């Protein structure tokens, strides 16, 4: 074992030696520099290995051979080993990244860099407060030098601010040290802690000064303008160091000195400061467009988050360290990687990051880093946040949970905007950039570290067996073959899904609910993927993401515990986000989708937290016995799931997201993905159970929400000119029905709900597939630019017609089954007004259905569409398979509904529907699907036959063989009345869909951004203002904590 003290000896020895090499021997200096960093990494890594594998005891390093407190003592324990390894790895990779720049600036720059890394190491290891002061001072001076590497004027300004503020804070630290020394008689941290400085007012001022100095180092909001400028002005490579190595070290240092003020109040203040920083920095970041500055805000926010976690350590107990580590490591890898990418792009505005598209590897890593920051699975921060929230909830600290989730959401606001820009923003000319190997390798290494740590932490948290990784591995495999042509990947994907369905099925033997949903999810997956054969090229990135979504969906079904459920929920969200954003104009819509999704996910998380807190049981069945704030918990869960089902108020993301998605993505996200929300709601309602006193109001409200959603959705669809948006609004409406039906909590209602769910899956898949295909064929979304397609695309027409009949609930097709059950349920439940609204909405549906089929298929064929052909057979095949499904379901619903009925019966007091063959009887009425089918079918055929016989000789009219207003039309556009055909209706009832809700969210977001803009004015750029902030912070903190306020 190499003694840790050699970290100092080697680094300083090399740094001093490098002065010997002039320009002639520069290369040797460079080699020594890298070798030195490498040996630091080796030493700390070796210790880490030692601790992990051999579980060695903590090593104490006595300098000068004397015992503490009389000499300085360093310590190398497990935590120090972790931290120093992190710092040194970042240092080494960063050096590689910056090497050309450092080399250009000469040996001096390298020396400074080396000493920066060395001092960071010592700050982590030392146990002596004055030594800590000296080495943090070395660190900040070295950093003040590194900032100047770019040589720009901005860098000098930033460095000046940094120097002044860190000078003030180190002055205060010195004062604190000397007074603390006076009271404790020692300079070691542990002795000072044992002296209980905080207990007496006299000595507590010393403790205050110490702590406040370290807090200032961590850049608490709002006294952090100086810190942010450093991130902005320094070379991104240096930003990476500050964010990854520096922030990690200062957090650990803070963790070491925190017990100086041991006392619940103090910790509470610290947590509060952390929370304010977390929220404030993220808030301000929402207005930021400079990537480095944005990353700076985000870094500071993350540090605030960690500070908050440390402040809550009394609550979190022994889990503090592992939680903070998992969040820290995500931050570390992600921020380093992001800063480095930023250095490669060298863009002033995050909009220019769209150039990243040119390099798929970087783009992938960029996405991974962002998701890691926000806390998506499988990254460490996901598990960290999960543990954190579960623990907090268990101890009743709800307000902290709210703070964390709000801040994380705000973080999502800007990070996803950024991601959207990178993936999708239209750019006339993508700026060129070079990716040299020495810059790519560090970034990729950080990516590897991130994924490696994900795997490792899953193991540490003991989540490994809880999560099924087989689908994930499959996703990875698909990712590995992403370069192959689409049809190969398509085949592999379909085969994989089919096999997995086959593999999974036996385990769901007695669980009809899950069988239904697996049918929807995976059956739907296969069918929609079949349509993918119509696409050409490699479709880079499509298959991994689609499969990721399906993996998440499958995982939802397999989930036994809340963690599994949430893990897969997030996985699905991430996958679907990438699918949605693939559309040409999807960027803003995918953005709002993901924002609603993460907000919903956080609501679910909090709900799970409450459930976990009440039962101390991570299984999903804990949901049925929530004793902590049950009403709130159920509401949160419901709201969370409703973001996916796009219920009223939470629906505004859907039209755009579904409407603009690619033609085969729309059915995936509409017919399949929305059902995930339904599945969640079903699980939730099953857990709530009938007559749960905590959820009565909730269910009632949800019932109304469902009814109004239906109305708004259908009404919205009526006024759409865009075919896919029309369908998207229609989805909102249909999901409204489903939500409404399930809130009944009666047997009949649920049966109706299931019928709707199955129907919606089938007809919406058909519609989106076919309409999507047509949209692609015709090259326009606007229905008024289509028309007359019936002659060109008869098969499509029939598919659409049948779907429409189902949506309309017109007998004899299966839509009517849903309606019939539904009205029985309404009357039985007694929710008449809601029922009436739904009924009204149901008729409104005719308006848009007519518009859809009329504008697209009927009316006048346009000149430029004379040569179009039927859409691809690959789209029609799945559609017709689904039509067969609809027909079977229509004619023999009892084979599906009866088992469902039996399945759900135990959950309710009574079974209110009885089956005799195909005849269903309720207390209110009866319905015999098969007979109706036969009667209607026969009558229909007879009439049709008669008419055909009557008009056998009819001649075809030419398109314009019509006369009106004494003129013969000659252009189809003038004759195809489709645009805004419901103008009168809009005048009368348009107010219902007046974009009140969209306005509400717009106002919310505008206000948030305004507020952020207003807040960030504190960062006026003036050095003195920043100083003022710092002093103000200190004074206020003092007055609150000690001054007796």
């Amino acid at each position: 074992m190499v003694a840790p003290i050699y970290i100092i000896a080697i680094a300083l020895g090399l740094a001093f030696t490098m002065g010997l090499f002039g320009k002639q021997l520069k290369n040797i200096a460079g080699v020594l520099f890298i070798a030195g960093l490498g040996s630091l990494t080796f030493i700390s890594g070796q210790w880490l290995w030692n601790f992990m594998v051999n579980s060695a005891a903590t090593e104490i390093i006595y300098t000068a051979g004397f015992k503490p407190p009389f000499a300085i003592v360093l310590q190398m324990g497990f935590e120090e080993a972790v931290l120093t390894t992190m710092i040194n790895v970042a240092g080494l990779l960063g050096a590689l990244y910056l090497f050309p720049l450092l080399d250009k600036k000469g040996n001096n720059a390298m020396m400074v860099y080396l000493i920066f890394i060395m001092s960071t190491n010592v700050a982590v290891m030392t146990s002596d407060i004055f030594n800590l002061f000296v080495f943090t001072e070395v660190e900040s001076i070295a950093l003040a030098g590194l900032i100047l590497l770019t040589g720009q004027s901005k860098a000098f300004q930033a460095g000046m601010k940094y120097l002044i503020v860190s000078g003030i804070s180190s002055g205060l630290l010195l004062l604190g040290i000397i007074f603390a020394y006076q009271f404790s008689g020692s300079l070691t941290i542990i002795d000072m802690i044992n002296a209980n400085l905080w207990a007496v007012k006299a000595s507590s001022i010393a403790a205050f000064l110490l702590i406040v100095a370290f807090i200032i180092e961590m850049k608490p909001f709002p006294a952090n303008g100086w810190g942010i400028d450093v991130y902005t002005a320094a070379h991104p490579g240096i930003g990476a160091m500050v964010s990854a190595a520096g922030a990690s070290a200062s957090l650990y240092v803070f963790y070491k000195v925190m017990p100086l003020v041991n006392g619940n109040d103090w910790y509470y203040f610290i947590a509060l400061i952390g929370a304010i920083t977390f929220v404030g920095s993220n808030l301000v970041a929402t207005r930021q467009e400079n990537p480095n500055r944005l990353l700076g805000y985000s870094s500071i926010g993350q540090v605030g988050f960690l500070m908050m976690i440390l402040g809550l350590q009394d609550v979190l107990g022994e889990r503090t360290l592992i939680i903070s580590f998992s969040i820290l490591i995500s931050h570390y890898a992600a921020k380093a990687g992001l800063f480095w990418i930023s250095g490669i792009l060298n863009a002033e505005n995050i909009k220019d990051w769209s150039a990243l598209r040119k390099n798929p590897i970087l783009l992938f890593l960029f996405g991974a880093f962002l998701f890691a920051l926000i806390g998506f699975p499988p990254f460490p921060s996901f598990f960290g946040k999960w543990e954190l929230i579960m623990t907090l909830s268990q101890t009743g600290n709800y307000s902290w949970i709210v703070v964390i989730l709000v801040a994380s959401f705000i973080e999502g606001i800007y990070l996803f905007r950024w991601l959207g820009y990178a993936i999708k923003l239209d750019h006339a000319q993508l700026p060129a950039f070079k990716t040299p190997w020495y810059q790519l390798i560090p970034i990729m290494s950080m990516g590897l570290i991130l994924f490696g740590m994900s795997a490792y932490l899953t193991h540490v948290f003991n989540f490994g067996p809880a999560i099924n990784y087989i689908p994930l591995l499959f996703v990875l495999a698909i990712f590995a073959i992403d370069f192959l042509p689409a049809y190969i990947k398509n085949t592999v994907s379909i085969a994989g899904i089919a096999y997995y369905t086959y593999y999974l099925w036996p385990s769901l033997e007695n669980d009809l609910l899950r069988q239904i949903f697996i049918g929807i999810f995976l059956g739907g997956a296969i069918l929609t993927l079949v349509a993918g054969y119509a696409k050409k090229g490699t479709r880079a990135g499509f298959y991994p993401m689609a499969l990721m979504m399906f993996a998440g969906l499958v995982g939802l079904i397999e989930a036994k515990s809340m963690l599994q459920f949430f893990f897969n929920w997030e996985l699905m969200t991430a996958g679907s986000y990438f699918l949605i954003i693939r559309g040409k104009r999807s960027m803003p819509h995918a953005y709002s989708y993901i924002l609603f999704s993460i907000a919903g996910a956080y609501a679910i998380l909090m709900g799970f937290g409450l459930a976990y807190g009440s039962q101390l049981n991570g299984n999903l069945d804990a949901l049925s016995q929530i004793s902590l704030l049950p009403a709130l918990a159920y509401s949160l869960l419901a709201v969370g799931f409703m973001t996916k089902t796009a219920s009223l108020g939470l629906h505004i993301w859907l039209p755009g997201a579904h409407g603009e998605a690619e033609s085969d993505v729309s059915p995936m996200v509409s017919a399949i993905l929305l059902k995930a929300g339904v599945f969640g709601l079903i699980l939730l309602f099953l857990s709530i159970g009938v007559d749960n006193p905590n959820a009565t109001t909730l269910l009632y409200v949800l019932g109304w929400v469902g009814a109004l959603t239906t109305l708004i959705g259908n009404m919205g669809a009526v006024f759409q000119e865009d075919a896919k948006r029309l369908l998207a609004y229609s989805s909102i409406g249909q999901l409204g029905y489903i939500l409404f039906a399930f809130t009944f909590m009666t047997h009949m209602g649920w049966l109706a709900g299931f019928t709707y769910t199955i129907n919606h899956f089938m007809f919406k898949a058909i519609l989106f597939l076919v309409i999507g295909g047509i949209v692609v064929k015709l090259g326009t979304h606007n229905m008024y630019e289509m028309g007359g397609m019936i002659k060109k695309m008869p098969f499509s027409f029939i598919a659409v017609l049948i779907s429409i009949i189902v949506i309309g609930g017109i007998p004899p097709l299966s839509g009517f089954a849903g309606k019939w059950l539904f009205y029985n349920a309404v009357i039985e439940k007694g929710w008449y007004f809601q029922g009436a609204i739904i009924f009204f909405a149901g008729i409104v549906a005719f308006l848009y259905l007519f518009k859809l089929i009329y504008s697209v298929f009927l009316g006048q064929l346009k000149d430029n569409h004379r040569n179009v052909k039927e859409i691809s057979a690959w789209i029609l095949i799945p559609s017709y398979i689904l039509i067969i499904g609809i027909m079977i379901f229509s004619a023999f619903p009892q084979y599906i509904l009866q088992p469902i009925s039996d399945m759900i019966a135990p959950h309710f007091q009574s079974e209110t529907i009885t089956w005799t063959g195909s005849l269903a009887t309720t207390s209110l009425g009866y319905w015999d699907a098969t007979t109706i089918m036969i009667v209607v079918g026969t009558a229909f055929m007879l009439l049709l036959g008669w008419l055909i016989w009557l008009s056998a000789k009819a001649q075809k009219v030419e398109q314009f063989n019509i006369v009106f207003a004494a003129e013969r039309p000659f252009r189809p556009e003038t004759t195809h009345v489709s645009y805004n055909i419901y103008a009168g209706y809009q005048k009368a009832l348009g107010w219902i869909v007046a974009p009140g809700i969209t306005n509400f969210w717009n106002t919310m977001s505008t206000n948030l951004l305004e507020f952020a803009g207003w807040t960030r004015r504190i960062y006026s750029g003036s050095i003195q203002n920043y100083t003022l902030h710092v002093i103000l912070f200190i004074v206020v903190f003092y007055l609150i904590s000690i001054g007796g306020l």
Partner: protein
Amino acid sequence: MEYIILITGLALILMGLYGIMYIKNIFRIVIAFALFDTGINIVMVTIGYLRNGMAPILDKMPTEGTTPAIVDPVPQALVLTSIVIGLGVSALMLTYVLKLYEDKKSLDINSFKDLKW
């Protein structure tokens, strides 16, 4: 006496802070910073002072069981370090001032607001 010196030190720190926060000329801010540093050093040494203590330089090996009547050497050692660090920081700040001036031809602190928001 030590009380008076302590007050002097604290007052110098306050003056330094006032200068840093109020004065517009960055050069003078560096001067204020030097005052701030000096004040802190004075305070630190004062803390180690022991009435009737001698300077911590022994003229003979102390005999077992008796403690030489000296002032506390530890703060002095710390201040030594602190003074040198102060020099380093001042020199660095002056370099910055020089560069800033070279850039903007001004010492007014309000001309260095390129970075904000």
